Structures are given as C-alpha cells and as structure tokens.
C-alpha cells in the first residue's frame, strides 16, 4: 500500500504544529507489526515470578486475574528480553510468520 493511501485510510488529523488532540492515542499504534521474533510462554513451566512482566520495555506482558502472565502481541516488538531473563527458560521464540 502506498503511504499516502495509508494516511488517508487511517485519516491521521493534520493539526497545526502536529498537536495530538486525543490523549492516549499511541494505543492505536500497533507496534507488534515490527516483530521479527515471537516469544512464547510455556504456561506449564511458568512459576509466575513476574520477571518477564517487569523487564518488558513495552509493557506488553500483562497479568490475568488468575495470576498467569500473557503477552499482548499487538504491542510486543519481539526484543526477547523476557526470554533472556526468564529463570526457568519457560519462554522460547520462533521466527514470526507474516
């Protein structure tokens, strides 16, 4: 898709001075598209220590009400810090297929 068509489709508002009038608009920016590697948590091995949740630079790991840690792939850029830090090697990765 050409960039101009993309801008049209997303209807980016061209405000004076590029002011963003809507707070929290970065949520719409789906940075997960950048990913090359996709981390996967093995819930069987996970002891719910929360280290991955702490180190994730994009706050893309979240805690479910039953205490599980899950990855929000909409924003996960695949840096694999979580995999490196996981003390039980419960996190592995694959090459993202697009």
């Amino acid at each position, binding site marked *: 898709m050409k960039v101009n068509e*993309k*801008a049209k489709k*997303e209807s*980016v508002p*061209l405000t*004076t*001075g590029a*002011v*963003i009038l809507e*707070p929290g608009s970065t949520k719409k920016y789906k940075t997960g598209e950048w990913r090359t590697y996709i981390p996967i948590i093995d819930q069987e091995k996970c002891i719910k220590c929360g280290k991955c949740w702490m180190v994730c630079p994009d706050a893309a790991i979240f805690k479910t009400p039953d205490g599980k840690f899950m990855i929000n792939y909409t924003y996960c850029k695949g840096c694999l810090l979580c995999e490196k830090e996981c003390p039980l090697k419960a996190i592995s990765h694959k090459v993202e297929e697009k």
Partner: protein
Amino acid sequence: MIMAEKKVISGADGMAIAAKLCRPKVLPMYPITPSTLIPERMSEFVFNGEMIAKMIHVESEHSAISALYGAYATGVRSFTATASQGLALMHEILPIVAGARFPAVMAVANRALAGPLNIWNDHSDAMSERDQGWIQLYCENNQEAFDTIIMAYKIAEAKKVLLPVMVCVDGFYLTHAYEPIQIEDQEKVDEFLPEYKPENFLDTTSPKSFGGFAQPNTYMEFKEAEDKAMIETLKEIVKVNNEFKKTFGRKYGNGLIEGINLDDADYALLCVGSVCGTIREVIDELNAAGKKIGLIKLKSVRPLPVEDLKILCKDLKMLGVIDRHASIGFGGALTNDIKSALNNEKVLVEGFVAGLGGRDINKEKIRAAIATIIKEKEGFWLK
C-alpha cells in the same frame, strides 16, 4: 508602567524594553556576547519587580531554546536572545519550535561563528539558520530593532502564520551603539498587541500531546503546511507594518523590503542590516555628483519577498548584493537567494562577501562595489 519618551540608550537596552512592553511571561536566557546586555537588563526588570515574568537561568543556549519551547507548550508568550555560537547550539531545537508552530520571538545579535574565535559582527550565525522555519527580520538601526520586536510578536501570533521570529540586529554596531529611541507607552503597546491566547496548550483538564512522531505518510504534509504559512507571512508582515504605522507613526518600507533612490537608477546595491545606513550616505554623495545609484534594503530574509524584489529590480541593469556571510566555496547565502529569486529576470546579480568577523564595511568599500557593478564585472571578497 513605561511611559512614552525619547531616550538615548543602547540597541540592546532598547530591545529589552521593547520585549518587556510585549509582556512575555517566561524568559529562558543565556548570556552571550554581543547579546548579553539583553538578558542582563531583563534580569533587572524581573528583580526590580518592573515585570512579572519567570526568568530561567539556564545552563546553555540549548536549554534556553528548549525551555522556550516548554513555555510555549504551556501557552504563554516568551522571549529569549542569543548570538553566534549560542544560536548554533540552539540549532537542533530551532526547527522543533517552528514545527510545533510556536510564535516565539528571539533577538539575535549577529556575530561571526568560530573558528578562529571572533566575537564581532557578521551574519554567519543567522544566515546559517535560515532554513529552519523561523521568520528572519533584519534591522538597520536601533529604533527599527525596538519596533521590530513589537511587530514580531504580532506577525508570529497571527492565526495564518504561527511561526517563530528571529529579530536580527548587527552585534556591536547596533547592540552597543547609543542612539535616540522613541519608547512607546505600555497602554498603546497593549492595544496593538493583545494577550496571546493559543488554541492548544498543555492543560490537565484537556490533555493533548506536543512533540509527537510523524511517519513518512504525514511528515511531508506538516512541512508543507509550514512552508505555506511562511509564504502567507508575506501578507501578514505588510499588514502589521501598516498597522504599526497607524498606531506608532513609523514604518519600514512595506515591512519586507524597501527601495531607495531606485527611480531612473540602472544600478543598485542590496543588503540587510546596519550597513544600509552607510550605503544611504554613499548614494546621497554620488547623487550630488550626478550619479544615480539605488539601494534595496531587505528586511525580511525569510520569507523572501520574491515578487516585491522582482518589481523593484525590473528597470535595473545590475544589482550588487553585499553579503555579511560566506557560504564557503559558493559565494554568500544572501547572494545565492537573490540570484535564484531573480533567475528569470533580465537584471544581472553579483555578490560581494564583506564585513566578516567585524571587518568594517566603510564608504570606500561601498564605492568599490558600486564601481564594479557599474562596469558589470564579477563580484569578489570585499576586504
């Protein structure tokens, strides 16, 4: 309260008083020769309670311009002043202020750039920043500097403009020269320049983001909008110049450019800043001797009034540009701009790089430049 009166003061004092009359609320300033007198004076104003403003003693010019950006993001009028290396250090933030469309005003006391180190006047500092989205207005004398500060806020804050302004004055030649300046009274300035009320500013009750990120699909559109606003500024400067004349009784050409002694002249010089005064004298002397030489005093370098320039040059055979700046290896910036603006006109344009690092541009040098253009010969470094 400042009352209208005529005072013999330095150019820097005049600019500080003019800025005070515009009621800026934040003053992030870092002293650098030859602009130092401006922050000094404004510091005194704040300390003495003569003006209600926050003076921020920043640690560098990079911080001064960054704090100016911050002040404008909160929606208040602000002011700063700098020169030379200070302006060069601000370089990174200059297009960010313009891109945010903050109508800031900054006094620039034009000074050479190192190296070798030199504290004296030329236009290397400001000319190097002419592509950063700032309006650039140059002044011939201290009254003009005083008036231009007041006009600058009105131009910058116009809805169709919203671009920052550099008010450029020749370091030492103007900043440290004592001249009579007509100080205007506060009420009259308040009437001319109403309170600054921006549409968007940082406000916890209505959150907005400034300084966002633009992707390839929008960045160019933002820059195009800036470019269009800069061209729109041409009309606004003319309008403000006329309004200023109505309120205060003084004006500077059409606000952008002024033609002097051009009727029936075949040859003319074009320049910006204080050297216009010297050229006026030389052309008066030549006039008395029966030689007709014109002068084009350019006030607005950005936006460049191309159409006005073409009209002023339509009957000229040759125009000589006195450039207080060298675009090393390719003439001077002003010459190159003027040449490109007059590309399709019949007038020949030649440039003279002169007055670098405080070298005096005296009458003799002006006469040498005039002698060259009359012979329609090439320009050179007028040392």
